């Protein structure tokens, strides 16, 4: 199985091999991430969960990928499917009805193909309840030219409880408690506009609700909400965090919670999607499209769009690489002593990285604390003999302005049996001036095929010509980096005078 695992992380999995891997369950899961084994799964799988988020359904046609993934989950024996909000893209009833129709098509009467119950663990996100206000809701206008008719289908303007209950044939409340095969689930719907939640960044009444549940403190339970638990998964700079009240509640009273969230659309290649501190949190990627963190030249980040005064040298990767085509999610197997989270890209059938194996109860050192992981996860490394090719180009920057650039191309630092794939690359310009070598420009880049889970494409990075000093010898130096910013060994060009001052 070690060979299978090595192939799994080296080549990615096709759909068939993923299924084999799933059936191989225990052994696969026993090989956690790089570094020391965290825990060996013990006993049979007690619970299987499909976990998705931000499916952003627009119409029946758009449910195709969703239904396909539900069928995958069904075939893998899921006992429940969690979707952490943003079901209906523009928050209109017909879209939510499409979601429900898809659900019941795959799980008629809430049951899988073998007759086992499959729990609906979905809830509203901001798009479900506010989406009609985004970008003037042009599709809504197109679907419902008559404004009065349109108002009748906007969830925000109607009875969200009745709409949900009609669609999913189950009672609705802002906070829901469900029990699946003995495990407790608490689901917080996105309820912006309620008293105490004017900004949509917390869950009023959650503490009181949970106090009434009599949860077993020695057993893990699961929570799901749309917004990211503040300063947890994906770090303090991820888009769309809650105000911190839910995280503070869990930290103070529920260290045994496994808390799932969405909204940020973060790519699950990023190992920072799992976080441990006083509790455990997992950011769930979108089944519709990925968003990256800001600060990279070719990232796809909402924050970047607000920093127009900063020159980013490349277009947003998703625009050029197929916006809205990656489909990511998790499949979770719960054992007596741990849970194993498989990260999967469904469209291309590839793994997004080694499994996360989260022990129960979380030991004192919290193996998925960023600081702990930083020490354990090895740095990615370039293949032996990797070189940088440099050519001069005129290309558009993020804002579409044509600029003189140097385009660097080099092979990816792909995953191996002992090292992870590069989460990103740091490119520096070093200037040789007399007896010193000093950095005069640094930029970060995501790999070309980052959001697809692939790692085959040559990496292309562009540096401004003005990043390179005129008339002095300089070189480009590239480090691959893992999700915790640990740098692998660099590759570099020779020092040379690349340009003369005009």
């Amino acid at each position: 199985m070690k060979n299978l695992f090595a192939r799994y992380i080296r080549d990615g999995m096709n759909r068939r091999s993923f299924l084999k891997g799933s059936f191989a369950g225990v052994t696969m899961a026993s090989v956690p991430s790089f570094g020391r084994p965290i825990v060996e799964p013990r006993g049979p799988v007690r619970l299987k969960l499909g976990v998705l988020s931000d499916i952003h359904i627009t119409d029946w046609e758009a449910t195709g990928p969703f239904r396909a993934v539900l069928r995958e989950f069904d075939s893998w024996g899921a006992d429940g499917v969690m979707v952490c909000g943003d079901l209906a893209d523009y928050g209109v009833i017909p879209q939510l009805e499409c979601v429900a129709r898809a659900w019941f098509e795959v799980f008629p009467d809430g049951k899988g193909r073998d007759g086992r119950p499959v729990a609906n663990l979905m809830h509203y996100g901001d798009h479900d309840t506010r989406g009609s206000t985004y970008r003037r809701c042009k599709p809504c206008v197109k679907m419902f030219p008559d404004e009065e008719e349109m108002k009748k289908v906007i969830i925000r303007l109607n009875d969200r409880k009745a709409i949900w209950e009609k669609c999913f044939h189950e009672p609705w409340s802002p906070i829901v408690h469900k029990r699946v095969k003995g495990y407790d689930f608490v689901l917080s719907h996105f309820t912006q506009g309620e008293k105490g939640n004017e900004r949509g960044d917390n869950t009023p009444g959650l503490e009181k609700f949970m106090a009434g549940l009599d949860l077993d403190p020695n057993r893990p339970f699961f929570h799901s909400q749309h917004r990211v638990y503040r300063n947890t998964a994906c770090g303090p700079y991820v888009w769309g965090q809650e105000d911190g009240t839910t995280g503070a509640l869990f930290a103070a009273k529920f260290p045994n919670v496994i808390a799932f969230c969405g909204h940020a659309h973060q790519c699950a290649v990023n190992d920072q999607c799992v976080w441990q501190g006083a509790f455990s949190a997992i950011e769930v990627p979108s089944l519709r499209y990925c968003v990256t963190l800001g600060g990279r030249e070719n990232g796809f980040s909402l924050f970047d769009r607000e920093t127009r005064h900063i020159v980013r040298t490349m277009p947003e990767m998703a625009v050029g690489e197929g916006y809205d085509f990656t489909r990511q999610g998790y499949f979770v197997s719960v054992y007596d002593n741990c849970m194993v989270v498989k990260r999967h890209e469904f469209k291309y059938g590839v793994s997004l990285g080694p499994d996360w194996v989260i022990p129960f109860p979380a030991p004192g050192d919290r193996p998925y604390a960023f600081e702990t992981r930083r020490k354990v996860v090895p740095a990615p490394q370039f293949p032996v003999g990797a070189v940088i090719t440099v050519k001069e180009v005129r290309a558009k920057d993020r804002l579409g302005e044509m600029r003189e650039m140097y385009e660097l191309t080099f092979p990816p630092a792909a995953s191996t049996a002992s090292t992870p794939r590069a989460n990103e690359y740091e490119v520096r310009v070093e200037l040789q001036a007399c007896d010193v070598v000093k950095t005069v420009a640094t930029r970060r880049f995501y790999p070309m095929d980052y959001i697809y889970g692939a790692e085959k494409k040559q990496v292309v990075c562009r540096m401004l010509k003005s990043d390179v000093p005129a008339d002095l010898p300089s070189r480009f130096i590239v480090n691959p980096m893992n999700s915790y910013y640990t740098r692998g060994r660099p590759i570099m060009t020779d020092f040379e005078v690349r340009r003369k001052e005009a």
Partner: protein
Amino acid sequence: MSLTRRGFIGAGTAFAALAGRGLIAAQGAGLAAGKRRLRIGIVSDIHVTSEEVAQRFRRALEHFRSIGVDGVCIPGDLADGGVKPQLAIVADTWFKVFPNNLGADGKPVEKLFIYGNHDIGGHKYSYPEGKTKSKEWMDANATALGDHRKTFWEELFKEPWEPIWKKTVKGYVFVGGSWSRGPFHVDGAPQWLRAHADELKGERPFFYMQHPHPKGTIPYVWSGDDGTITAALKEFPNVVAITGHSHATIVDERSLWQGEFTCVNAGSLRYTAVNGGRENSRTFGVEDPKTSQMPFIWAPDSAPAMTMDVYDDALVFSRYDIISKLPLGADWVVPWSNGTGHGCSYEERYRKLPVPQFAVGAAVKVSERRGKNRRKEDVDQVVVEFPNVRKMDGSLARAYDFEVTCEVRDFDVERPHLVKRVFSPKFYMPEQADAKTVACVFAKDELPKPFTVNDGPQRATIAWRFVVRPCSCFGRKGVPISTDWFFA
């Protein structure tokens, strides 16, 4: 001879101080405990143009006389313009201090001088051929040393001259190879060394002088020969090469090099040429980078000199400023055994020498101003100020220069945005004469504009800060100090 440094400086007696300091340092290492066999004063690149300029040279010679040297080494560039009248001033100054080549106590003091490139071709630097019809050029050309190097030398210094000479001082051999016209080397030196190998090889050191540093030894731009002499010197593990030409500061520990043999940079008594690559320096012959925000350091006030004491088991080089008599660094004690020097390679000293460290509580201050860049253009600037790192303030080592990094926090990305290196204002002088505070200047448009995105209660930001590290001559860096992040 058991003076402490403080007591010695207080006494103000150069002889006692320098001798005592070297001896104490050497004895501390268990070396140089025996009888001193030889004492040599060393200056280089004195570039005399006039009686006035020669005053610094005279002070050096007077100091050497006061500490009882057996000889004085000058590895070239005596006469700045390479003309006889200038060399005459050098000779006159010598004989005024050492009449009949005798010291204060009447014992012989040997001249160990050679020609450098300025002596041989300096008249062409001062009077380029475009001015061939000027009277100055005619006068200079008529008295150019390059065409009359033997006759003028013998007339002025009252001794025979050879392109490569050999002298013996108290049993120690000195070889001097004068600058040849053309390439940066001494014509015939490799052959000469091979021909005299039997006389030169042995347990004792011998001393070889040429103007440029042998290629592959002391690493400065604007120096270095063509490499043939280095190859020849490698055959002599007992050779100590004494060289100049680069005008590099002898504060720099790299002025003592050791590989297959030992080599010393003697600096320049006239002015120090500062290494480029720093915000306040320039590389000779290279146009100033457009982004330099500070004027480059010009160091005519430096007056470095050395005393070399030779013991059976060690050579001790004391470095000091000839005007203030203050040290320019710790003595170099070169252990000597089995016919060669030991323990002073760059690698060994990289490991052994202490790393400069900021004092506890040292802080970085940042201010903004409207100032001028290197090109005299008005620029909005950000000035980063921090304390200097000096031994006298408690650091185990003096900083050679500082690395000042502008780090950017671009959301979760923390990256070096721009790195600058900067010298303290008087880094080439004794640390007592150096500034307490160092500044490094950035143009405001070199820095990213801080920015904040409000996302509910969250502040996502682009911010920057400055991180400063003191650096040793070998590039080792001390613990950094930094500012807080600057937000919008």
